[in-house]
């Protein structure tokens, strides 16, 4: 396997991420106006919505990478898809928790059922939460990666369909901020939101690259040890949900 270096450009990317997030936070606290209705608590919007959007895009990104795996049969793509979905899950849990806090603060309840975006998001998260248990319960690594990719593609296609069905099932409560025309956000808020979104997306890409670099380096070290020191020097890999 050619040694792909995921570490390349990682320092620049990390710095760019850091700068964007710092800028976004500065804008959130010092530039964006206070919401007339909700006051200070509305500022969690700039964290919550980007987290949720990036998480959903991460799931679809993982599905696209899984298509690459099934097309080429190269396990490298499975690793990429795995890391993408696993990162998106972490972002998704973050989005759910921040959303819950926001709901409690602005609507008075931790959970609101007549809120299609929230409910769809929960269903998507529940579906993707089975990704790791599924991987873990298939022992043969080759079959594990193949089945995980099939699951990732099906679940990725499920995301938009699920949003459609749940949205139609309920009345609108959520402020429509995500329409293509930019919704009804005033200019200063929209700018802050967009920069927060870019910062969160950069954070996702950076973390994805870090994990890929770490996993890649680990497998290279294993291979080198095995070549140089013999098979006994490497502990046999235990059963794992992560691809090797």
């Amino acid at each position, binding site marked *: 396997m050619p040694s792909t270096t995921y570490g390349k450009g990682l320092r620049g990317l990390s710095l760019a991420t850091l700068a964007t997030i710092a800028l976004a936070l500065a804008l959130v606290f010092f530039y964006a106006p206070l919401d007339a209705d909700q006051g200070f608590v509305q500022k969690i919007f700039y964290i919550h919505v980007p987290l949720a959007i990036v998480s959903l895009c991460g799931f679809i990104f993982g599905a696209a990478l899984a298509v690459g795996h099934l097309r080429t049969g190269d396990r490298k793509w499975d690793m990429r898809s795995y890391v993408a979905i696993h990162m998106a899950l972490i972002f998704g849990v973050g989005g759910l928790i921040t959303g819950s806090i926001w709901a409690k603060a602005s609507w008075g309840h931790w959970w609101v059922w007549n809120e299609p975006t929230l409910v769809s998001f929960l269903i998507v998260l529940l579906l993707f939460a089975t990704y790791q248990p599924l991987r873990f319960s298939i022992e043969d690594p080759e079959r594990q990666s193949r*089945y995980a990719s*099939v699951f990732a*593609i099906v679940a990725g296609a499920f995301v938009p369909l699920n949003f459609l069905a749940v949205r139609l*099932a309920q009345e609108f409560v959520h402020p429509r901020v995500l329409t293509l025309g930019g919704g009804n956000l005033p200019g200063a808020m929209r700018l802050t939101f967009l920069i927060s979104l870019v910062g969160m997306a950069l954070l996702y890409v950076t973390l994805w690259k870090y994990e890929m670099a770490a996993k890649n380096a680990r497998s290279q070290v294993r291979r080198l040890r095995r070549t140089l020191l013999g098979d006994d020097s490497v502990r046999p890999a235990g059963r794992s949900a992560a691809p090797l």
Partner: protein
Amino acid sequence: MRTALILLRKDLRLELRTLETVPAMILFALVTFVIFHFGLNRSTIDGQLAAGVLTATLLFAAMLGINRLFVAEREQGGFDAFLLAPVDRSSMLVAKAAALFVFLAALEVIAVPAFGLLLLGPSLGPALPGLILVLALADLGLAVIGTLVSGIAVQTRARDLIGPVIGLPLLIPALIATARAAGPLLRSVHAPAAPPGKWLAILALYDLVFALLAYAVFDFLLEE
């Protein structure tokens, strides 16, 4: 297509001789109606509540069939024999989905009238044509997604756990559309003659997308 028909005939004959899956699904559905009667503490239900109870019961009963769908193939070496045969692999998907569809239809032939007798307030008769249409579309979705999920789950160590855990979230949109389409039909007053077109369209779209998707990815589940 001929292969699919042969496989389907084999599955149906197997079911007729062993009576392993469908009777269990029917019993499960009947028991669930009794459970709902006590859980809700209601002798009759109607409208959206009735549609929800019916849909949830059918969904859980379908889960039993979905779990069993590929077990015989795996335990008796049916997969190996199928892979050795020079036939199109997608025919397995078509045959299994068709078998599951037949199982679900057989379940509903008993369970829906039983629901009408045991729980439903208004009479079942006027709602029946619309209900059959809704349930046919719902069964299509359950059959396709169930076959796909069952194909994934049967190769895992904890297949009885993985199947429902993956299958239920995937089926939630179909459940929403089925329950919402059937709800107005089961109202005791002002019940429309036809189910709402919006939900039928969503159900049909869902069936179509997942049928195409299953057709595209199913081959990868059978490779050895």
